[in-house]
């Protein structure tokens, strides 16, 4: 309060002196972020503080919602005419946001340096129909995490390279009585389940859509769901996976109750932090496995971008803020929970130090990132898939029928 009064007074002095009349014309940006995973809320706050320190004429109001509320909050704010200048968006939304004019096309603002410096795969996060709707910010995919100590006790030399091998190793661990259910996934009725499914679809070489029509009910898409159901029924997968979100998976893994877990980048450094984690120092990470004869590794594109909403009245300031948040310097500084979008960062010891294993896995995983379909009807498709996954796991419907129904209900 005092500070802002001080600023106003100072501003008045300048204006009175006709020096730089606009220098203190304060702009307030409203920005929407998510309150979990990747960059932590504290990270975002301190990045923003650094930005406002460098740009004292811009104020940024931050709001954090859980991932599950991010899409609807963005759309609702837009629908009600007020709202945010800068929003965080998931890789699955640009199609819908572009079609419904939620985000502005920023293609002209992307510089050649950006085009050259950012990893090519990262751009798919913000593109739709050849146009750019923001800057990639969180570059992420799911990795296979493993508990080195448990694998060692089971006499397993190397983590699995194929999904089949994952099952075999889990069986050994189970048979030796080291863990009752060695694998943990996030298969709750939520987007998280679709991300795990997508990772498997990419491993089995499946397609979500062909010529705009659903194609996941055949081939690789079907094999992926069958793998999930088999793993669940065999008892190798923790049966509680069907109500887990990513954070539940992390807790189970950090408690030493899982030998294998599929999760995002952020788990690596959190699980290695002895403050919360019982498995600190024993965390191994590799790219998600492949399928013999089809793929070497598998990965889902789980990246997120920062964009400017069409209702924003301060688009220039908003872009300035986005540029700062996605700059290589900022990203390198906060590379512990989310890896940078900039290619050359991966050779920077400041980024790689202490997480060499993660960087090695990232080089393979990020290159193999498989996108979920870019369609304006994504939410409907995803909801239908979530239902198919859960019904199959619960044994209510056979995977073939569940996916057929999902295809019918996908709205495509």
């Amino acid at each position, binding site marked *: 309060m005092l500070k802002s009064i001080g600023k106003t007074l100072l501003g008045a002095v300048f204006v009175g002196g006709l020096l730089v009349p606009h220098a203190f014309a304060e702009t307030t940006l409203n920005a929407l972020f998510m309150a979990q995973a990747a960059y932590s809320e504290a990270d975002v706050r301190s990045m923003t503080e650094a930005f406002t320190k460098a740009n004292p004429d811009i104020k940024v109001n931050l709001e954090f919602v859980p991932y599950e509320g991010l899409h609807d909050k963005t759309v609702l704010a837009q629908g009600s005419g007020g709202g945010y200048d800068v929003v965080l968006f998931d890789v699955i939304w640009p199609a819908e946001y572009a079609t419904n004019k939620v985000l502005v096309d920023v293609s002209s603002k992307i510089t050649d340096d950006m085009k050259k410096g950012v990893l090519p795969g990262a751009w798919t996060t913000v593109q739709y129909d050849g146009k750019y709707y923001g800057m990639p910010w969180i570059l992420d995919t799911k990795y296979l995490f493993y508990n080195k100590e448990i694998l060692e006790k089971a006499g397993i030399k190397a983590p699995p390279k194929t999904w089949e091998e994952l099952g075999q190793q889990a069986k050994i661990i189970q048979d030796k009585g080291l863990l009752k259910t060695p694998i943990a996934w996030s298969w709750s*009725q939520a987007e998280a389940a679709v991300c795990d499914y997508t990772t498997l679809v990419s491993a089995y070489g499946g397609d979500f859509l062909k010529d705009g029509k659903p194609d996941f009910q055949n081939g690789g898409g079907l094999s992926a769901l069958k793998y999930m159901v088999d793993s669940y029924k065999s008892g190798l997968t923790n049966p509680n996976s069907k109500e887990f979100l990513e954070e539940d998976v992390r807790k189970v893994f950090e408690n030493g109750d899982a030998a294998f877990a599929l999760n995002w980048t952020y788990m690596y450094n959190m699980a290695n932090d002895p403050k919360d984690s019982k498995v600190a120092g024993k965390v191994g990470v590799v790219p998600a496995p492949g399928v013999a004869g089809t793929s070497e590794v598998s990965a889902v594109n789980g990246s997120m971008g920062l964009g400017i909403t069409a209702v924003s009245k301060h688009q220039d300031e908003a872009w300035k803020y986005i540029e700062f948040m996605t700059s290589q310097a900022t990203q390198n500084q906060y590379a512990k929970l989310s890896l940078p979008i900039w290619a050359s960062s991966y050779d920077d010891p400041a980024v790689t130090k202490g997480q060499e294993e993660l960087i090695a896995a990232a080089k393979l995983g990020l290159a193999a990132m498989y996108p979920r379909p870019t369609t304006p009807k994504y939410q409907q498709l995803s909801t239908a898939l979530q239902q198919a996954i859960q019904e199959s796991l619960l044994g209510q419907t056979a995977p073939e029928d569940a996916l057929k129904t999902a295809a019918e209900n996908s709205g495509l």
Partner: protein
Amino acid sequence: MSGTWMTTRAWLLMLPLLVIMVAVIGWPLVDTVRLSFTDAQLVGTAGNYVGFDNYTKMLTSSNFSRTLVTTTWFAVISVAAEMVIGVLAALLLNQEFRGRAVLRGLMILPWALPTVVNATLWRLIYNPEYGALNAALTQLHLLDDYRSWLGEPGTALAALIVADCWKNFPLVALIALAALQAVPRDITAAALVDGAGPFNRFRFVILPYLAGPLMVALVLRTIEAFKVFDIIWVMTRGGPANSTRSLSILVYQEAFSFQRAGSGASLALIVTLLVTVLAVAYAALVRKTAGSAT
């Protein structure tokens, strides 16, 4: 002062309220009705007139019928349980005993907490790996192994109902307690002298005093239970396999997640109509009980 002037003045005094009501309830309702006959999207297209298409599609979809059944189960069981537990708690707290004031204060706590806090708390209690419920039941040897309460269709709805009861029975208890304090002491004393047992004392002496206020609680709770959204959204988001999806969640998905404002509006109106019918039926009942009590 003449009667007509009194009436005019009453209307004049109510005018500001009426204007506000029309603005915040009337207009959105009219606009929702208009929307429900179009194929409008939430953002973007304004939509074309499609007649009763949205309604027929909604009413004939298996999603709707299934969700209606789920919501009805949820509402009927949780409201019934809240009424019974609420009245029992009120009877208990109406007794003279040490620490009664503290207990009354504590009882209101779950109701006073925001639903999201309650729901998060219950998610922790039901946690399949580290939850208190599993720990308690296995230590008491009532359960061999930890269970996934919110992950099985068979137990998820029941688990939600328990959480909802815990949150809402204090409201019923509070209303019942207030009514109990209006029961004249000499009447209950006379019933005791006449040799009426506890059940008969409750049924014939106390219940008539409770009936009116309890009907109000019943109406309030039923309407709220039919509109349930937040507790389910936080705990299961309608899962597993949509076994706990309520009508409000269906409206939300249709209108906001899928952005089909038109069919979302039609669904919202169907739910509004259902709740209104319930409320009118109850109101008639209230009038009857209130009439018979006096």
